[in-house]
């Protein structure tokens, strides 16, 4: 007995794609792991401290925010759900999102991290001998810790021979540790990528489906809207938004999403137009099936293929858009971002190569990974393969 044949065929095809796709998935998995475990990987506060007087403290965990908890729980649910193949992918996604949302809500209510953190507290304490034992994070620097207690620490190359400190990837122009900032920046990169694309998908698919299904004047107006948003170069549109609105992460996500929806609308419209005339849809209507069944069970699942491909590429361009804005100094203020660090590579007279290689390389690898996924999806979902599936 064959079981869930389509599922197997698609995954089999992707897995058969070879090294490139596996690289992409490994890199993205690594990124997600790093993002989820970030506070435990890079933090100026130790996980556990045994004071001179014998008392224990858990400074790192005391500063955990709801966001940190949500990311961590999200990672665990992803690990569990990816293996739980018995229920459909869509249902698993919904469960995962629900768990994360629930955790976030509970954590927001329960956790109360203090708003102001003095990063060198425990370092000073250790130097003063007030600490008997301490368990530090592998990279003992927070992203916003500018190491003031060490004096001027700006723009040091990696592994520079400095007696007290050890920076694997060097420091940036403010003195912060690059590795730590990169780890925490991965959160922004990943979340902007998905949420911005999600926003764009919701807008684009709705408008596109309406255009393709109803045609007529809805189509006329919708196409003009699409053309208008496509005619203005994305970056200029983003610049316009940024110029007039304040810069916050959720707003950034929505703004990037607002500039990306036309592509999805076009694909959805084209698919719906094609499906409207296709025999099995006509047959479904002629069989008297209710409209919502025709739309959601017969048309939409068949329209997903080009959208999935476009979404993979879309996540890449959303990440790129955020990096570009940060690079131009127009991104989020003070939050660590790969693009912003890249900008510092050529700011001073010297070429600060580590700020080009590491953050730049991270952007390159992530965009490359999503592009590879997009290409693999495009090849796997080739309609010619569907036709001659046997």
């Amino acid at each position, binding site marked *: *007995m*064959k079981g869930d*044949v*389509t599922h197997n065929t698609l995954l089999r095809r992707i897995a058969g794609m070879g090294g490139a796709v596996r690289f992409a998935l490994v890199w993205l998995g690594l990124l997600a792991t790093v993002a989820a475990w970030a506070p435990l990987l890079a933090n100026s506060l130790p996980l556990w401290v045994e004071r001179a007087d014998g008392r224990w403290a858990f400074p790192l965990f005391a500063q955990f925010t709801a966001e940190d908890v949500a990311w961590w729980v999200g990672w665990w649910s992803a690990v569990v759900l990816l293996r739980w193949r018995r229920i459909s992918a869509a249902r698993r996604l919904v469960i995962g999102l629900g768990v994360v949302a629930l955790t976030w809500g509970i954590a927001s209510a329960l956790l109360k991290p203090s708003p102001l953190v003095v990063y060198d507290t425990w370092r000073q304490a250790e130097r003063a001998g007030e600490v008997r034992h301490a368990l530090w994070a592998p990279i003992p620097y927070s992203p916003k810790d500018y190491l003031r207690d060490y004096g001027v620490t700006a723009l040091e190359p990696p592994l520079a021979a400095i007696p007290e400190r050890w920076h694997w990837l060097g420091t940036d122009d403010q003195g912060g540790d690059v590795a730590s900032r990169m780890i925490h920046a991965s959160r922004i990169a990943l979340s902007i990528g998905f949420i911005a694309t999600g926003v764009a998908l919701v807008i684009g698919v709705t408008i596109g489906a309406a255009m393709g299904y109803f045609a007529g004047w809805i189509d006329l107006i919708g196409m003009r809207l699409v053309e208008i948003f496509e005619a203005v170069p994305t970056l200029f549109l983003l610049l316009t938004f940024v110029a007039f609105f304040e810069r916050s992460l959720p707003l950034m996500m929505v703004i990037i999403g607002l500039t990306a929806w036309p592509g999805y609308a076009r694909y959805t419209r084209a698919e719906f137009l094609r499906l409207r005339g*296709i*025999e*099995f849809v*006509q*047959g*479904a*209507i*002629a*069989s*008297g*099936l*209710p409209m919502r*069944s025709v739309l959601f*069970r*017969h048309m939409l*699942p*068949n329209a997903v293929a080009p959208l999935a491909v476009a979404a993979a590429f879309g996540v890449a361009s959303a990440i790129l858009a955020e990096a570009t804005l940060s690079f131009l100094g127009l991104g989020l203020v003070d939050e660590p971002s790969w693009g912003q660090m890249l900008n510092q590579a050529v700011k001073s007279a010297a070429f600060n190569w580590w700020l080009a290689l590491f953050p730049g390389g991270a952007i390159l690898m992530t965009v490359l990974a999503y592009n590879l996924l997009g290409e693999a999806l495009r090849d796997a979902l080739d309609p010619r393969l*569907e*036709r*001659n*599936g*046997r």
Partner: protein
Amino acid sequence: MTLDPLLTVEGLTITLANGTEPLVSDLTFSIAAGETLALVGESGSGKSLTAQALLGLLPTGVFAPALGQATLSGISGNLLVPDVAARVRGAHVAMIFQEPMSALNPVMTVGAQIAEVLEFHAPHLSPLGRQAAVAAALTEVQLDAERIAASYPHQLSGGQRQRAMIAMALVAQPKLLIADEPTTALDVTVQAEILQLLRTLQRHHAMAMLFITHDLDVVAQVADRVAVMQAGRIVEMGTVAEVTQAPKHPYTRRLWAAQPRHLPPRPKGCRQTGMSTSASPNEADTACAAVPSDASILDARNLRVYFPIQRGVLRRTVGYVKALDGVDLTIRRGEVVAVVGESGSGKSTLVRAVLGLQPLTAGTLSLFGTPMQNRPRHAWQPVRRRVQVVFQDPFASLNPKRRIGALITEPMAVHRIGVDDADRWQRAQAWVTALGLPAETLQRYPHEFSGGQRQRIAIAKALALEPELLVCDEITSALDVTLQAEILQRLAHLVVERGLSLLFITHNMAVVEYLADRVVVLYRGKVVESGETATVLNRPEHPYTQQLLTAAGFNR
């Protein structure tokens, strides 16, 4: 007609590059100058591959180099070797293909494409000389040389494009013409013209022809000798008379028997004889008795569907395409009505109009006695179950994302057939088995099935709703003749067993003769002739009907 062979093929074998099973094995045949050999077979028999191999056109990455020997008299070397094939292509051996639209370069004029042949095979000609030769070639295929030479392929009709292709193939005076299903994509009337043209040109140029087809009617019209292929081998070869009248190989016999004209006559229902010859006579009699035989299923009068033509900058409506221009159609219970039409006749529009998927510009449409023309969607709901449709393209008629079981049972649930899901599943299973499909069909997805199987699934899906009228839109046109025979016979049984009415769209007159009680001939949106099958087929009145029948080989 000389008896020296022009083309000799020995032991031709074709395999996939990474495959072990040969697709074509050990083919041996010969063609004399001026002779036409027809290569006949169903899909997958390897006939097209053979043709392409002879010209070295098989893609090298996909196929291993062809084995065997193919020689053309006057040319040294084995045609299967790429270098030899390159010398021979276009100059000594020419080929015409099935789909004239996609076989011509859309961005070059027809004249330029024909001249190209001369550019490489008659380099001594000046540009003016080439132009003259092109004009001569186009005139020979009965086209208006000046106009067609300057036109692009998309500006021509299917028949014109195929004629242009023929001109292109013949302009360099080849000795052998390979025709790969050249008329399959054309209308029946056009097909007859093209076949006639090919025969004339062949005689005129003393050319040999290798004619590939799956259509046995065409064989009789165009060939001297026939070779029948099955699964990559020639199973029978001989003159047309020998093979058609006294076939020896069981496969050939099966092919011939599957021709609609050679099928045993279908069982007649109670409409015709008052008695049924079906398996369970009691059931049939009760069915006959219960329903008045004159009950009107479909009554359409003066159907008109006009589509506006919009031109110019402001998209003003300058005229109308009259897809249906005053069509009358009636179907009674238990009756099979065939609608015959070629492309542009309006038959697809008729199907959509009858199903309520196409609004009518004018006219009345009554289903089961209730007027239904241009009524809103919800008014159609009670009628939906009673009228079902099966479409032509088996690859587009089933939603690829759902399992067969769900596809069949969902409409059943909507129309409340069966008491619960389990009951519906059982009924679906029964239908699937009745149509000869494997037991696990319901759990599978459409892409796991062949074209013929998908068509049967589509029929099962339609019949599961127990409709009273089944609309069949060219359901067997894309199928091999043996599959077609099977489906036609099943349908004929169902008509009798269930008192089912059929609206059967087709362009194949032989199918009409087998299946239909009445026939309606559609031409450019109008009904040009209608009546009892026997009457129309034996004594056609309208010239178009006569043309159709002659082209289909009825009045010879």
